[in-house]
């Protein structure tokens, strides 16, 4: 009797410790609603074809990787609007340096990561040391990068060697490499936030920077670190996209609206833009919602412009589904 209740208690405790972010319920809702619509109006592939299920995740990889970086920055009560053009410069530069030759791959990867680190550093320093509002600071860097790449490259430049396409198209067993990378990045983001000093400090800075500073956290360094990591995730996403496209073009980032979409997925996941709260698993849920929607729209053959309209409505409703209960006024 006592043993039974003890095990029962243990199960209950384990169940309690697995805290599923509410966004996943929304994800399941969207998935079944979309799948049912597909069943009724189209060929019903979403429920019956596992390849499409997998495709939902593959579609989300680039956005998912950036969203992890964006989550870190937003938890620190900052924002990064430069990720889209960081992706573009990565795509263009890596493909330009590689020129279709495997020997150039390490060189290309090192240089784009160096560029990414520099962008993140500039963002972080402008925000912390020059006290520029993060919105304006990263918008400014984004304009600067945009200017530089549009002045240098106008179209597809260089190409990616066959070996590098493994990143975008390869599979290990039956699982695409890209999904594994996404999971590793999300897990790394989770580890960083939940299990390291840096993560704890980041929550502190996002919650109340002044209090964090007075309790001995080097707030500036923490925020600069978050920005560098965010730019690095953008670089990784850019590498992934260029390996899929086989050649880099300057419009990759802005065309995917990765800046605003990564912020939107983060917020849909439940991270407040005011910072100090949230985690990367919930962001992954937001990203997957985007993936599901994209797939459903494709399956149903929705007009692309109507798709934009629906996307706008769904983003707002998803966020509204938790903000509506809040007692505080939004701004």
């Amino acid at each position, binding site marked *: 009797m006592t043993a039974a209740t003890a095990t029962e208690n243990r199960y209950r405790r384990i169940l309690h410790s697995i805290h599923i972010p509410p966004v996943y319920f929304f994800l399941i809702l969207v998935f079944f609603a979309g799948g049912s619509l597909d069943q009724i109006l189209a060929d019903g592939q979403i429920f019956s074809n596992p390849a499409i299920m997998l495709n939902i995740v593959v579609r989300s990889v680039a956005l998912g990787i950036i969203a992890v970086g964006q989550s870190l920055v937003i938890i620190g009560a900052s924002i990064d609007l430069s990720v889209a053009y960081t992706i573009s410069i990565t795509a263009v530069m890596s493909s330009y340096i590689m020129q279709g030759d495997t020997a150039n791959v390490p060189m290309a990867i090192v240089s784009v990561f160096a560029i990414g680190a520099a962008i993140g550093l500039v963002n972080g320093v402008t925000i912390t040391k020059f006290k520029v509002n993060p919105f304006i600071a990263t918008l400014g860097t984004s*304009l600067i990068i945009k200017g530089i790449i549009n002045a240098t490259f106008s179209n597809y430049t260089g190409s990616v060697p066959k070996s590098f396409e493994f990143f975008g198209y390869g599979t290990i067993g039956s699982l695409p490499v890209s999904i594994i990378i996404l999971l590793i990045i999300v897990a790394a983001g989770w580890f960083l936030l939940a299990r390291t000093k840096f993560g704890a400090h980041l929550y502190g800075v996002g919650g109340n920077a002044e209090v964090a500073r007075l309790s001995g956290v080097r707030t500036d360094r923490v925020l600069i670190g978050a920005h560098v990591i965010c730019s690095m995730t953008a670089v990784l996403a850019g590498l992934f996209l260029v390996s899929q496209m086989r050649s880099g073009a300057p419009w990759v980032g802005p065309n995917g609206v990765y800046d605003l979409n990564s*912020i939107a997925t983060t917020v849909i996941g439940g991270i407040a833009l005011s910072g100090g709260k949230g985690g990367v698993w919930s962001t992954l849920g937001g990203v997957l919602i985007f993936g599901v929607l994209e797939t459903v729209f494709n399956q149903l053959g929705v007009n692309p412009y109507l798709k934009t309209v629906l996307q706008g409505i769904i983003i707002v409703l998803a966020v509204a589904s938790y903000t509506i209960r809040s007692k505080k006024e939004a701004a």
Partner: protein
Amino acid sequence: MTTTTVSSPKEFSKALWKIWTWIKKIPPVYPVFFIIFITLGILNPTKYQSMNGIMTFLRTASPLAVIAIGEMLVLASGGFDLSVGAIVTLVVLVSSKLLANDPANAYPAILTMLGIGSLIGLGNGLVVSYLKVPSFIATLGMMLLVRGGALYYVGGAPQGYLTDNWRAFGRNYIENIPLFGRVPNALIILIVIAVFSYIIFNRTNFGKQILAIGDNVRASQLSGVRVRLVRVITFIICSILAIIGGVMIGGYGGVNVTIGEGLEMQAIAAGVVGGVLLSGGKGSVPNAIFGAFTLQAIVNLLNLLGLPKPYTDAVQGLIIIGAVAYVGLTSQRKK
């Protein structure tokens, strides 16, 4: 005799000090604008030192200034409006279809657009106030909705052209005005809007309430401000001003699918260069207007220097960061 000789330098230095404190109070946007504009005048005297050239400059700068006023109001209330760029695209695309190439449709089309604009603002305001969605996300969703809706309505490409009487607001001049020569319609619209919004913002309770909300929502709520109502009206004003700005931009720019792209960022930047705090609670109509003029002057300067368009973006980015860093660092020193 002795008293006058001692006191006059003292008074003189006192007066100087007074002037200096007065100069220090001038927002940095004015000296920045005039330095850039004078540089323009030195580099191209025929274009920027004639009344005609100045009026042409004001014609191109006025639409952004109108949009920046609306954006400034929303920023001062502590929110964002990212939908203004999409609204401009909507005005131009939907008007091109509503006009059906018939000048008689111009005024009904503009009235329809103003109606749609107030609905968009109402939507933004209601979503922020009642669904409590942060305005960044609410207006981002609205941006997607408006842009997608406009493109869906016209089928992805402009339908027809904008008639001349529709375009007159942004393109034409009133000729033969003494002293000024000719004055662009756009400038007159800007002045009328600026005066009205200055009165609303600085001389009415509503204006004070916008600032109060931006400064501290809870405190203003407790002192009886109807936060939701004020916020909804602010968003409606912003959207209507974006519609008016769109009519002016369409006037000189013509039909183009990407005409409004990035305008929301420019409007925010204009407000920020004009000293608006993005966290709310601070703002000024004339400063926002001159913020917009400064951005336009920078673009003209870079064009004049022969920099290709992409570099213009880059330098604009640098200058925006620089302006905000300057404001941030100086205000920090005061603390």
